[in-house]
C-alpha cells in the first residue's frame, strides 16, 4: 500500500501541473476540450489523493511502524478512532488532508461552473492548478507521509499526544482545513476575473457561497478548538490568543469584511478594488496561518514540531501577495466605482467602517503574531506578546464593531436623514441605556468594558428583534397570513439578509458569554487534605479521597470533590490525570454545567501529595454564562445555513442577467 500511496502522490503532482498548464492554454486559445480536460484532471487528482489517504490510514490501522507518521503518532493500544484521526496529528499527514480538501473543493467548484463563466473558468482552473501543484509538491517531495523512520523499525509507536485524544480533535482540524483551503476558490475566481478583465459582479456571485463555506468552517473550527482547549488543555479558559488560534482568526476576520463589502459592490458598484484586496488578503492569511502551524516558528499547543515546509509556505505567501498586487494594479482602470459615497450616515458607510475595523483588528492580531518572530530574527531574542495586548485591541476595535452590527441593518442606503435616525434608533438606544443602568445596579459596573459590551449587546438584540418584527408586519400587510407564515416568507425571500441577522445574534450571544465568563469569573486555588473543604462563589467543595481507574490505554488518577451549595448536594467533580501506557501524562478537568444559567463549575487537579495521604492541590473556577459561547456556535451555524441555502429566485435572476444576455456570444 505504501508504494501505491507514494505513486498516487506523484500522480497528483503530475495531474495538478497538467491542470494548471491546460487551464492557461484553454484560456489563451478558447479551447473547450482543454478546459474539460483540466476539469477532469482535478477529479483524477482527487481520486489519487484519496488513494494516498487510504494508503496512510491502512498503514495506521495495521501498525506499520516503518512509516514515520505511524511510529511517531500512534501506538498499538491507541483506540481505533484516534488511530484513524492521527492522520492529521502529523505534519505530513495533515498536509495530505489539506491536499484532499483542496483537490475536492477545486473539482467541485469547476464542476458547478461547467456551463457558467466560460471565459473565467480556464483561468480559475489554472490558478487552482497552481495552488494544488504547490501543495502536491510539498506532500510528494518535501514532507511525505510515506517517509520511513530512521534506523530500526520500532516494535511499538510513541503514541498520540494525550491532548489530541479527545473527540473534538477528530472534528476540529478537518473543519479548520475546510475553512483555510476553500478560501482558495474565491481567490482563484478573483485572479481569473483580473486576468480576463471580467471584473463585473459575476465572479462575486460565483464565490459568495464558497466564501460563506470557508468563513462558516473557520468559525465553527475555531469554536470547536476553543471547546477542546476548555475541556482538554485545562487552564480554565477557551481562548488564549495562541498564535495558531490567531492564525485561523485572521482570515476569518478578512472573510467577514469581504462578506459585508461584497454587498456594497453588488448594490452600489463600489469597493471593487477593496474586494479584490480582501479576497487576496484572506487567502494569503489562510496560507500564512498554515505556515505558522507547520513551520515551528511559533510555540503553541496546536502547532507541529519544526518541519521543512515552512520556508516554502512563506515563499508561496510572498509570491501570492506579489502576483495579486500586480494584477490589481494592472486592472485598476476596470475597477473604478460606479457611485461615490454620498454620506457618512448611510448603510454603505457603516459597511465601510465595519470593514476598516475588521481589517484593523486582523492586522493588530497579525502584528502580535509576527512581532516575536521578527524580534527573534532581528535581535536574536524571542519576545512574547501576551493577552493584554490582544484584549486591548479587541476592546478598541471590537466594541465599535459591535455597535455597527446594530447600526448597519437599521440605517438607510445612500443617506439617512436626522428624522429617520431618531425614529429608527430611539428604542434600541433607550433599551441599551436602560439595560446599562440596570446592569450597573446589579453590580456589573466593576468592568467598564464588560458593561459597555453587554449594553451594546442589548442595543444589537433590539435592532435585530425590530428588524424581524417590522419585516414580519410588513410582509403580513403585503401578503396576509399568520405571523409564523409571514416570518418564514420574510426569511425565505431574503435569506442573505435575515441569515446575516441570525449570525449577528450569534455574535451577541458570543460576546455576552465571553464578557461574562472573562470579566466576571471567580478563581480559587487550595490545598485540600481528605475531608477538608474550600468555598468558591457560594459552592462548597470537599475532598472525598483520591482514586484510580483503568482506561483502554491509560490509568486515571483523580480526586473526588463533593459539591454542595446552600446545604444541598450538587453531586461530585472528579478532576485528575491520565498516565498513558506510553508514559505520557494528560490533565483531565471536570466541569459541572448549569443548563439554565450556562454557568460552569470548573475543576483542575494540580497535584497529588506524594505521601499518599490523599491531599491534593486543586484550582476551581466559576465561569458564568460560558455555555453561551457554545450556544453561539449553534446559532452561528444556523445563520450560516440560512444564508447558504440556495435561492431559486436569485438563480433565475442571474440566469436572466448573464445567460440570456450572453447567449449570443456563448460566454
Amino acid at each position, binding site marked *: 500500500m*505504501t508504494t501505491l500511496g507514494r505513486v498516487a502522490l506523484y500522480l497528483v503532482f503530475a*495531474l495538478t501541473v497538467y491542470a494548471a498548464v491546460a487551464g492557461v492554454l484553454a484560456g489563451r486559445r478558447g479551447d473547450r476540450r482543454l478546459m474539460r480536460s483540466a476539469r*477532469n484532471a482535478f477529479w483524477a487528482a482527487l*481520486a489519487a489523493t484519496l488513494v494516498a489517504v487510504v494508503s496512510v490510514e491502512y498503514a495506521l490501522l495495521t501498525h506499520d511502524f516503518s512509516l514515520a507518521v505511524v511510529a511517531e503518532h500512534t501506538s498499538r493500544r491507541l483506540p481505533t478512532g484516534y488511530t484513524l484521526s492521527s492522520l492529521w496529528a502529523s505534519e505530513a499527514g495533515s498536509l495530505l488532508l489539506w491536499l484532499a480538501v483542496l483537490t475536492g473543493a477545486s473539482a467541485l467548484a469547476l464542476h458547478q461552473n461547467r456551463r457558467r463563466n466560460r*471565459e473565467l473558468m480556464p483561468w480559475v482552473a489554472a490558478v487552482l492548478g497552481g495552488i494544488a501543484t504547490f501543495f502536491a509538491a510539498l506532500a510528494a517531495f518535501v514532507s511525505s507521509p510515506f517517509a520511513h523512520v530512521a534506523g530500526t523499525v520500532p516494535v511499538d509507536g510513541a503514541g498520540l499526544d494525550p491532548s489530541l485524544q479527545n473527540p473534538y480533535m477528530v472534528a476540529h482540524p478537518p473543519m479548520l482545513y475546510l475553512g483555510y483551503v476553500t478560501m482558495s476558490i474565491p481567490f482563484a475566481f478573483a485572479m481569473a476575473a483580473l486576468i480576463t478583465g471580467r471584473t*463585473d459582479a459575476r465572479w462575486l456571485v460565483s464565490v459568495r457561497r464558497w466564501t460563506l463555506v470557508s468563513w462558516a468552517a473557520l468559525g465553527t473550527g475555531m469554536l470547536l478548538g476553543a471547546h477542546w482547549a476548555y475541556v482538554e488543555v485545562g487552564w480554565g479558559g477557551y481562548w488564549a490568543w495562541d498564535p495558531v488560534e490567531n492564525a485561523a482568526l485572521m482570515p476569518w476576520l478578512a472573510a467577514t469584511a469581504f462578506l459585508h463589502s461584497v454587498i456594497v459592490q453588488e448594490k452600489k*458598484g463600489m469597493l471593487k478594488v477593496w474586494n479584490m484586496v480582501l479576497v487576496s488578503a484572506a487567502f494569503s492569511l489562510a496560507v500564512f496561518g498554515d505556515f505558522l502551524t507547520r513551520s515551528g516558528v511559533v510555540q503553541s499547543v496546536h502547532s507541529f514540531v519544526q518541519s521543512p515546509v515552512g520556508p516554502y509556505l512563506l515563499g508561496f505567501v510572498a509570491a501570492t501577495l506579489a502576483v495579486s498586487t500586480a494584477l490589481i494594479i494592472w486592472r485598476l482602470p476596470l475597477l473604478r466605482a460606479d457611485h461615490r459615497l454620498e454620506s457618512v450616515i448611510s448603510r454603505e458607510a457603516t459597511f465601510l467602517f465595519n470593514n476598516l475595523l475588521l481589517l484593523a483588528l486582523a492586522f493588530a492580531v497579525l502584528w502580535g503574531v509576527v512581532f516575536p518572530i521578527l524580534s527573534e530574527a532581528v535581535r536574536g531574542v524571542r519576545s512574547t506578546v501576551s493577552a493584554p495586548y490582544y484584549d486591548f485591541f479587541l476592546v478598541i476595535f471590537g466594541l465599535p464593531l459591535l455597535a455597527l452590527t446594530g447600526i448597519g441593518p437599521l440605517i438607510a442606503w445612500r443617506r439617512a436623514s436626522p428624522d429617520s435616525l431618531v425614529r429608527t434608533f430611539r428604542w434600541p438606544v433607550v433599551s441599551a441605556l436602560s439595560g446599562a443602568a440596570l446592569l450597573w445596579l446589579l453590580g456589573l459596573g466593576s468592568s467598564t468594558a464588560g458593561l459597555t459590551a453587554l449594553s451594546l449587546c442589548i442595543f444589537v438584540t433590539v435592532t435585530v428583534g425590530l428588524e424581524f418584527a417590522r419585516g414580519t408586519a410588513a410582509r403580513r400587510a403585503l401578503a396576509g397570513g399568520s405571523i409564523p407564515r409571514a416570518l418564514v416568507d420574510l426569511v425565505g425571500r431574503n435569506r442573505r439578509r435575515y441569515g446575516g441577522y441570525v449570525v449577528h445574534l450569534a455574535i451577541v450571544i458570543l460576546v455576552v458569554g465571553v464578557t461574562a465568563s472573562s470579566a466576571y469569573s471567580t478563581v480559587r486555588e487550595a490545598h485540600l487534605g481528605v475531608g477538608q473543604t474550600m468555598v468558591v462563589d457560594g459552592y462548597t467543595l470537599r475532598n472525598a479521597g483520591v482514586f484510580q481507574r483503568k482506561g483502554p490505554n491509560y490509568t486515571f488518577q483523580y480526586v473526588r470533590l463533593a459539591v454542595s451549595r446552600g446545604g444541598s448536594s450538587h453531586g461530585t467533580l472528579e478532576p485528575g490525570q491520565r498516565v498513558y501506557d506510553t508514559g505520557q501524562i494528560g490533565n483531565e478537568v471536570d466541569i459541572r454545567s448549569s443548563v439554565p444559567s450556562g454557568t460552569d463549575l470548573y475543576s483542575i487537579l494540580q497535584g497529588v501529595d506524594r505521601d499518599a495521604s490523599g491531599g491534593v492541590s486543586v484550582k476551581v473556577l466559576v465561569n458564568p454564562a460560558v455555555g453561551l459561547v457554545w450556544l453561539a456556535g449553534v446559532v452561528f451555524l444556523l445563520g450560516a445555513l440560512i444564508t447558504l441555502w440556495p435561492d431559486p429566485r436569485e438563480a433565475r435572476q442571474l440566469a436572466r442577467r448573464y445567460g440570456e444576455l450572453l447567449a449570443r*456570444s*456563448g*460566454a
Partner: protein
Amino acid sequence: MTAAAAVAAAAALVMLAVVVVAWPFVSPEREQPEERLSDEDRRRLALAEARDAAYASLRDLEQDLRTGKVTEADYEAERDRLRADAARVLRELDRLR
C-alpha cells in the same frame, strides 16, 4: 498487499487518470471554440448589472419605508432618483439591442 499487486494497482491508477484526462480529446462530442466577449458585450453586462442593482435598490427602499427606516419625504426623493437611474440604464440597453 504484495509488491506485485501494489505495482499493478499503481499502474491501473495511472492508466485510469490518463484516460480521464484524455477523454475530452478522444470523445466523439465536438465542441465549438470559446467565443470572447466583445467590448459591446461587456458594456451590455455592466448595464444589466446596473439595471438589476437599481431594481434591487427600489425593492430595498420599499422595504425600508414599510419598516420605518426612511421617512415618506426621503422615500419619495430616493424613489424618483432610482427610477430615473433605471430608466437611463434601460434606454441604453435598448439602444444596444
